[in-house]
C-alpha cells in the first residue's frame, strides 16, 4: 500500500489538497504535485494528515 502510494507520488511529508469527496461514501480526489489521484475510503483512512499549511502522509 505504501509503495503504491509512493508510486503515485504520495510520500510522507508531502502537501496534498483534498479536492473532492465523492457522494455515497465514494473516493476522495486529492491533488498532489499537480496530479489528481482518486483514493478509496479504505486507502484514505490509512493516510494521516495534518491541517494548516502542511499535511503529511
Amino acid at each position, binding site marked *: 500500500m505504501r509503495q503504491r502510494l509512493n508510486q503515485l507520488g504520495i510520500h510522507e511529508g508531502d502537501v496534498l489538497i483534498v479536492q473532492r469527496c465523492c457522494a455515497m461514501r465514494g473516493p476522495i480526489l486529492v491533488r498532489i504535485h499537480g496530479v489528481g489521484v482518486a483514493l*478509496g475510503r479504505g486507502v484514505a483512512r490509512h493516510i494521516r494528515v495534518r491541517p494548516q499549511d502542511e499535511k503529511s502522509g
Partner: protein
Amino acid sequence: MDGASPGTSGCGLRMKSPDKAARNRPASSGKRVGQQPQFVLIGQPNCGKSTIFNEVAGYRSLTSNFPGATVSYTESRISVDGRPCNLIDLPGVYSLTSLDPASTETQRFLLDKPIHVLINVIDASILGRSLELTLQLMDLEIPMILCLNMMDEAKRKGILIDAKRLSVLFGIPVIPATASKGKGVQDLFRQALKASVRKPKARHIAGHRDVEKVIERLSRRVEKAGTAGSRFSSHLIATKLLEKDPYFSDHFLRKHPGLAAEAKRLGAALEKDHGRPSDAVINSERHALSMSLYEEVAQVRKPVIHWKDRLDNVLMHNFWGFVSLVLILFLLFFTVFKAGNWVENALLGRLSGFGEWLTRSMEPRSLLHSLVRGAADGLAGGIAIILPYLLPFLLGLSLLEDAGYLPRAAFLMDGLMHRVGLHGTAVIPVVLGYGCSVPAVMSTRILESRRDRFIASFAVTMIPCAARMTVIFGLIGYYLGGPAAFGVYMLNLLVILLTTGFLSRMLPESVPGMLLEIPVWQMPTWKVTWAKTWMRLKEFIVIAWPLLIAGSVILTLTDHFNWTGIFNGLARPVTWLLGLPAAVGTTLLFGVLRKELSLLMLQQALGSPLDSVLSYGQMMVFTVFVVFYVPCVATIGVLYRQVGVKKTLLIVLYTFLIALFLGFLVRIASWFIA
C-alpha cells in the same frame, strides 16, 4: 481499455502485432536484432507513449488514457530516415517495482529481451514524479534517451523546463515533444537512431551517502554471488532487494541464500537507522532526488486556467457528475441505436436483393444453393447488423477512453459499485462489456485482487454485449418498442447487481480500495482513436464474421440435410420449458458460437416477419434467455485464461440456469399480461 488490447493472458508477454509482416517474424532473434535497431518506449501510465507509437507506426497500437490499460505490449516496424527499425511500446509503469502484472511483465521484458535504445517518455507536466522511474531506468545501464512529452501541457501548468540542463545532468539526450500534435517525434527517433550507435550511458546520480553506502555494500555482495546472464546492474539489483521487490527477491534470492541473509541484515540496519521500513527509505530517497533534480531544471510560474480544469467542476461534481455520466452513456447508446438503425435499414433492403439475385440462377433446393444462400446471409448479417451498431459504439468508447473519461467514471461510480461488491475501477470492464465481452473480460486485469477480477468477469459476461444488443434492439426494440428494450436492460442490470452482491458476500476479503490516477483531460486525436476503434473492429471482422458466415452455412446445411430435427430435439427440454417453438432450439444451440447469430438464425428458422410466428410474449422470453444464457465461445475462451477452468464452468452453468429461470418467469408473466 485495455486491458482492452487483445491477445494476452494474465501473465507472460505475448507479441501483439496486427501487421502481417511483424507477426511472421520471431519475437526476438539475435540475428535480426543485430541488423535492426530495437527501440523500446517506456514510461509512466498516461505519459503519451502510445501516442508517440501511433504517430510513427500508423494504426498499429492500442493506446488508452486509463492507467494500466495496455498490459500487452505492441510492436511495429518503423522507418527512421529510411532506416528500418523495430519499435516496441511497453505497458505504462509507475516504477520498476513489480506491484502489478504490468510492471512485472515490463521487468521481465527488460531482463531478457534485446534492447538497443530505451526511450523513456516523460509527461513533462509531472516531471517531478516521472523522474523517479527515470532514475531507476538509468540503473539498467542500457543506452537511453529521454523524451519530454506533453510540453504544451507543462507550459499551460506554468512549468518551464530546461531540457539542456537536464541532458547535462543525466548525460543523455533529452528531446522535448508534444506528441499529440506530432511535434518533436521525428527528432526523437533521429536521436534514438544516433543513440543506437553512440550508446549514451546515463550518469549515475547518487543520493544520500549513508543509503548509498548500504546499496554499494549489497551490490558488491550481489556481484560476488554472480549475476551472470542478467541484464540488470548489481546496483539496481541491490536497490531492488532492499526495496523488497517481489520479482527481484524471487529471481535472485532463491538461488543465493547467502545473499538473502545479507540483504536482510542490511535492510534491517537501514530500517534501524531511519526508523522506517527499508523500502520506504529507498523510495523517499529516490523521491527526494527526483524532486531536487526537478527543482534544478524547472521553473514554476502561474498556471493558465484552462477549460480542462473547469470541466472537472461539472463532470466530477457530486451531483452534476452523475447527471453527466448518465447523459453521456445515454447519448452513446442513443447515437448507436439511431445510427445503427438508419444504416441497417438502408443496407438491409439492398443486401436481401443481392442475395436473391445471387441464388436466382441456381437450382432451388440444391446443395450449392443452400451453401451460397447461407454464406450470403452471413455476409449480409455481418455488414448490415454488426457494423452499423459496432462502429459507432466502438468509436464512442474510444473517444471517451482517449479523452480520459473512464477513470473519472470509475471515481464517480466507486461508492455505488462498492455497495454491489465491485470497485469503481470495475466500471471500465462493465462499460466495455456493453461493447463486447471479450475485451471486457480481458480488461478486468486492471483490478488488483483475483477475487475482484472474478466478480467483475462474472458480471461482465452477463452484460448484454453488442451482439446481444442486436437481439434486444432487433427483436424487442423493433416489434415491442423502445421502452420494452429498456426494460430488458433494467432487468439485466438488476440480476447482475444481485449476482455481484451475492458473490461479494460469499467471497469476503479486505478491500484495499481505489488508488487511481485521474489524468488530465486530453483532446482525443483521430489517429489514436481511429487506430483503437479499427483494432477492435478488426477483431470482429476477423474472428466474428467468418464464424458468422460459417454458422450461417451450417444452419442452411442443417436445413438442407434435415438435421434441424436432431438439434431441435436436443434443445427441446429448454424450448418446451420456455414455451418456444421447437424450431428455436437450433438457434439457441448455435447462438453459443456467436450471439449475433441468434437473431439471424431465428429469422431463418422461423421465417420473417417474426411477429407472424412468435407472440410478443415469446419474443420477450427468447430475448431474456439469449441475453443471459452461456457466454459465447470467444468469451468462454478468455474467461478460461483469466479465471481458470472451474470458475469458467461455474459461470457457464450459472448463466444457463439463471437464463432458464428468468425465461420461465417471463413466460409466466406474459400469461398474466396477455
